[in-house]
Structures are given as C-alpha cells and as structure tokens.
C-alpha cells in the first residue's frame, strides 16, 4: 500500500511536468500555425515558477483562498482515480469498484471550487465568467455522460479496470471502433472540456477580461495553472481508458495521451469563439443525437 501511495505521488508529479510540457508544446504548435517561432516548450514551467515567487497583496476572504486549492485538488484527485497502466501493481493508482461514478463527480469538483472563489473575488467579469463556465459545463457534461453511461452499460461494468479489460485484445476491440457514435459524442464534449475554440467562452479576453481568474494573481494563479495541467493529463487518461483501450505499459500511455492531446489542437486554431448560448445549444443537439444512436442500439441489443 505504501508503495502504491509513493508511486501515485511520483506519478502525480510526473503528470504535472507532462501537463506543463504539453501546454508549452501547444503554445509552440499554435505559434507555428501563426507563422511565428513561438516560446520554448518549457515556457509554462518558467511562468508557473515566476507566478509562484511573486508577491501577493490581495485577499477577498476564505473562499478566495480555497478556489485554487479546490482546482488543484480536483486535478490531483481526478488523476489519482484513473489507472495509468492497466493492471500494473503500482501505476493503476487508486481505481476501485465504481470509480467511474466517483470520477464523474470529481471532474466537476475543481470547476465548482473555481466558481466559488471567483464569485468571492467580487469582480463583475468573474461573476459573468462563472455563470458562463457552469452553463458550459452543463453543456458538455450531457454528451459526456451519455458516452460514459453507454460504455459502462455496454461493458456491464462501472470500473475502469472492467472497461479496459473489455477492450483488450486487438485494436478493433477499442470502444472507439466498437461504439463509434458514442466515441464521437465523447470526443466532441472533450473539445468543450479543454475549452478549445469555438467553445472557449469562459476565458474570453476580449469580452470578460480573462474570465474567472481575473482577480487571481501570483501563487493563486500558479496553483491554478498546475492544477489545470494535472487535470488535463487526468482527462487525457480518462479518454484513453474509455475509448483507446487503456495502456499496458508506460510508453503506450504516453503515446495515446499525446494523440488525444493533438485532437483539440486541430480545431482550436481556425475558429472564432461561439456565444455562450450557441455553444451550449451545439452541445445539446449534435453530440447528444449522435451519441444516442449507439446508446439506443446498446439498450436494444443488451437488454
């Protein structure tokens, strides 16, 4: 058990570094799309450290302090629930029976904490951005839930282990190919989770200064950054386990998460931003309808 905890912590630290690296890489790729040289891929490490060492002279009450903590813990907690490598004694983290249900709750934990703190900061832009973020979450959670419940029902399990178990043996056993419509719904909702354009309504600089963390400075912001990075990696792992059949060794995990990391990047560079209601309407129509095709099919066949 001690080894398990130790390895989980090591994995969390590696995930933080990996997430920061991926963030810098995405900045680099976007810069190349713009025709620029772009920052170094380690720019995010420098930013996080600089923010961590800046002074803080702001206080808006207790919730204000709790928000970055919630964000960070939401990221780490989500990460600790998801198995990295399938049935390895160490790297399968703390996945247990029914962890899928817990995960669905945990993934909104950070956003809710963020909402609380941002509202506490009392900045009108933050308030508007919080409403946007929560509505957006309500938007992309629906197709995601349809996908998760459909996959769980199809595999007769609500544990990651079971789902990965069911996908073993050949690439065609992956849920991506078993249930393509569910996968499409999940991947579209993934765009919303990663706030890639055109769904980036929460952090809209030209509309509401920088969204929820308008009032958050130095350490708060660095905590948010790192929490967001771990959370991103955790979500990559979730989608890897749900759709791409998990990973049987560490290299495979890295490759699959990297492929999943590329997917929102393909979209984000070439679209403007939706209005909030347009984005939520989009999530509640196309991905839901696409997902329901498989969903109903599964119900008919399996019951």
């Amino acid at each position, binding site marked *: 058990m001690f080894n398990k905890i130790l390895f989980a912590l090591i994995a969390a630290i590696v995930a933080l570094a990996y997430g920061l690296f991926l963030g810098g890489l995405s900045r680099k790729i976007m810069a190349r799309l713009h025709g620029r040289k772009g920052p*170094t891929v380690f*720019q995010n490490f420098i930013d996080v450290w600089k923010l961590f060492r*800046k002074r803080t*002279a*702001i206080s808006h009450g207790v919730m204000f302090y709790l928000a970055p903590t919630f964000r960070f813990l939401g990221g780490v907690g989500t990460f600790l629930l998801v198995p990295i490598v399938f049935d390895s004694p160490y790297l399968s983290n703390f996945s247990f029976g029914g962890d899928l249900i817990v995960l669905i709750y945990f993934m909104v934990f950070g956003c809710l904490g963020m909402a609380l703190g941002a509202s506490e900061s009392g900045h009108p832009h933050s308030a508007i951005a919080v409403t946007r973020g929560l509505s957006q979450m309500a938007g992309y959670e629906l197709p995601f839930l349809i996908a998760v419940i459909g996959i769980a029902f199809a595999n007769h399990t609500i544990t990651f282990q079971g789902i990965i178990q069911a996908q073993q043996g050949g690439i065609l056993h992956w849920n991506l190919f078993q249930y393509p419509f569910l996968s499409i719904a999940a991947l579209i909702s993934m765009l919303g989770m990663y706030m890639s354009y055109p769904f980036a309504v929460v952090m809209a600089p030209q509309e509401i200064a920088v969204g929820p963390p308008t009032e*958050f400075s130095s350490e708060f912001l660095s905590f948010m950054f790192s929490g967001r990075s771990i959370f991103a990696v955790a979500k990559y792992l979730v989608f890897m386990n749900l759709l791409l059949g998990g990973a049987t060794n560490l290299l495979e995990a890295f490759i699959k998460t990297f492929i999943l990391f590329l997917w929102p990047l393909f979209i984000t560079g070439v679209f403007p931003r939706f209005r909030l209601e347009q984005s939520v309407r989009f999530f509640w129509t196309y991905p839901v309808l696409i997902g329901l095709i498989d969903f109903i099919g599964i119900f008919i066949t399996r019951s």
Partner: protein
Amino acid sequence: MADNKHFLNDKPEKLTYARVWEKFDNWARANSLWVVAYGTGCGSIEIPPMVTSRFDAERFGVNMVGTPRQADVLIISGYLAVKTLKRVIRVYEQMQSPKYVVALGACPINGGMYFDSYNTINLLDKYLPVDVWLTGCMPRPEAILSAFADLMKRIKEGRADGWKKYIDNLGEYRKNQEKIIKNWKMPNYNW
C-alpha cells in the same frame, strides 16, 4: 568573501543560498514577462506588430495578459493625459510586485511635442517609477524588443527595483499625483 561588496546587506553565511535563490527567481522573472494589455497612447500602435508574427515577442516569454493582477510589465506607450494617468496609477497599484514600467517615446521623458499641452503630463517619473526609458516616436518594434532585452538584463542583475522605490517613497509619489489629479477618489491598495 571577495565579491562581498555586491551584497551589502546580506550576511555572509546566508550569502550563497540567498544568491542562488535570487538569481534563479530573477532568471524566471526575466524570461516570462507578462505585459498588461493597456495601450495608453500612440505607441500602442506598434504593440500589435511586436506581438504578432513578424517581430515575435512571445519567443522571449513576453506575453499579453488582460488583467493587471497577473501582469509584470506596464508599458506607458507615449504621452499620458491626466485622465489616463489616474487609470494608469490604478492599474500600476493593482499589479503585484515585482513589477516594471517601460516608458516609450520622448513624451514621458519631458513632454516631447506636447510640452505645452494643458492635458498631458511632462515628467512621468514624478508619478511612477520607470525602469526603462525608450526614446523615439514611434519606437519601432525592434526598439521595443531591445527595451525588453534591456529590462531582462536589469532584472537578471537585480537592478530593476522601481517597485521597491515606489513602496519606499509612496508618500512623495502620492503628493505629486494628488497635485494634478483633482478629487482623488481611489482605494488604498494594501502593500
């Protein structure tokens, strides 16, 4: 210690530790300068070319952020009208230390071509501590980048301490500011 004179107030036993720590922090600060997106004057017309694909400032870690809370650098781009000076002071006091001010053009130095205008200030450093002056109207994007390079050099050497000056002589700065800004209604930001 031979180079003790560089660290006048540091005790020798804490010297190396403080030195390494400080150097690393300054390196990080110099390599990720976030500029608050506030075009206060003409000079802001050369900011878009600077941050976009021809003179790519982001490769030096120079990045534009929308809120002063998260920014490190405040660019005073050209002359300052009194009405703008009030907002600039608010923006500057909301920024978290360490923070740096870059003044573009000749107008903040001595009024420039607006030396006799009733609405633009002549001497910026009476109201805000300036770390890097940059002359020329307009300063070309290369010139602004060179100003940033100079600022990075000063930060790495630990000489960009305008914010310390501001905190120390806050009363004097306040006196000058309140002299020209009538009915001074501003929150006191905690230092």
